[in-house]
């Protein structure tokens, strides 16, 4: 076959490729098609050329797949493929169905490990979040509750300071306490609570300590439990957990203490975490 004819056949093969020679006239193209249809040798040569093109495409595909395979293997994904792959053989009718199904077990194991890892991360995240936001004052906010004066005797029998306290008139409580001719544990304690409500923590601490000192001196325990508990709360409010802890531990150890149940419900883990954090 002449070189010219072979090149015409190549042009015919090339017509669907981007690099085709677009200068070929429709008449030339039609003549080549007639040649292929009518000349057996031309048809045979075209088949040879087509096989050559197939070979080029086959080699190209091989190169591309080999390149991906190489990347796959070099990046260690090959080790993961058994784990990540779908257990295909199980859906086959034939030998692949009998192939080892270790991938399923490994998949289950992997998923379990993933779930465990997620839970651990969540727990760790929660612990970190809690640690960051934990402080004496946050514990104070969590555990503080206002003192309710016992009014079982009826409002009529209340003295002025009790009435002011019941009315949450803290300034009046403090004024009456200061004006009182005789200071009692009760007036000291109520004044301490009024200071605590007004967030005058140092003054509150002074009043509560006065109650405790007075009881130590007299051997009584009038408003002792109340003063101890709220003294501890005052120290927490002042971010002085080291001062609060011994008092709280003492209350927790004493089941007869008025505030034992309340302190028992506190998280001493949190308190110690705060202690650790604030002592750093």
């Amino acid at each position, binding site marked *: 076959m002449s070189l010219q004819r072979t*090149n015409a056949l*190549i042009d015919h093969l090339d017509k669907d490729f981007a690099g085709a020679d677009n200068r070929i006239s429709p008449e030339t193209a039609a003549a080549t098609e007639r040649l292929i249809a009518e000349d057996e040798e031309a048809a045979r040569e075209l088949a040879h050329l087509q096989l050559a093109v197939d070979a*080029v495409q086959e080699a190209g595909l*091989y190169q*591309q797949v080999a390149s991906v395979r190489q990347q796959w293997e070099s990046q260690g*994904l090959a080790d993961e493929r058994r784990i990540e792959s779908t257990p295909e053989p199980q*859906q086959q009718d034939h030998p*692949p169905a009998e192939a080892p199904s270790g991938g399923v077990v490994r998949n289950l194991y992997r998923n379990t490990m993933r779930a465990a890892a997620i839970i651990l991360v969540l727990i760790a995240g929660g612990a970190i979040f809690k640690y960051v936001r934990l402080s004496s004052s946050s514990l104070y906010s969590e555990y503080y509750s206002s003192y309710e004066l016992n009014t079982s005797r009826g409002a009529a029998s209340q003295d002025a300071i009790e009435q002011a306290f019941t009315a949450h008139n803290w300034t009046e409580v403090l004024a009456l306490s200061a004006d009182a001719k005789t200071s009692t544990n009760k007036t000291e304690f109520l004044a301490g609570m009024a200071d605590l409500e007004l967030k005058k923590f140092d003054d509150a601490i002074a009043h509560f300590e006065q109650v405790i000192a007075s009881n130590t001196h007299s051997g009584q325990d009038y408003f002792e439990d109340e003063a101890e508990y709220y003294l501890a709360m005052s120290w927490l409010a002042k971010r002085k957990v080291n001062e609060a802890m011994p008092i709280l531990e003492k209350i927790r150890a004493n089941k007869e203490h008025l505030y034992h149940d309340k302190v028992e419900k506190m998280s001493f883990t949190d308190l110690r975490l705060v202690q650790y954090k604030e002592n750093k």
Partner: protein
Amino acid sequence: MKVAEKYTDADLISAISSGKDLDRAIQFLYRQFSGAIRSFIMSYGGNEQDADDVFQETVIAFLDNVKKGKYRQESSVKTFLASVARHIWFNDLKKKERAGIREKKYESARDQHEMDISHQIGDVEQRRQLRELLTQLGEPCHKLLHLFYYENLPMKEIVEHLPYENEQVVRNKKYKCLQQLTGMIKANPALAGQLNELIKK
């Protein structure tokens, strides 16, 4: 390598047919199917290298089928790949003459579907021989034909990749290269049978 994205069968066929981001589709095939098929090959006497090679041939055969529109989607991609891999491996066993009883034992497992697969993917050994011919062609011709017939680049871009002056020089060179390759195919006795079959069609 980026982790391959997930494809449905239809998406995968579409991605391969269009040729866009073919690498990612191949990555997906490796990630999703190589484990099971490698296990199968190794459970029937293959070593790691055999398993890798068979899977690679399987992927090539699958891609070739899809690109040429021969994949009929009568079965899922998984099933098709498994059938192709099985076909390739049994033929390899036969050719390596180490199948023996094992091959006979599983020979009965072949059914009409596998015969269809055989028809679809052709003779893998002949495909290997065709690839081998390309390596004998020489780098300049191989590169030129690859850019034209595989990368499907316009002539203007092909010129930029090659040390030739202009499009006409490249075009003339390509005529010669393709004729040279055709001559090599004609001269290869192992490919003669395939040629005759092809011409008869």
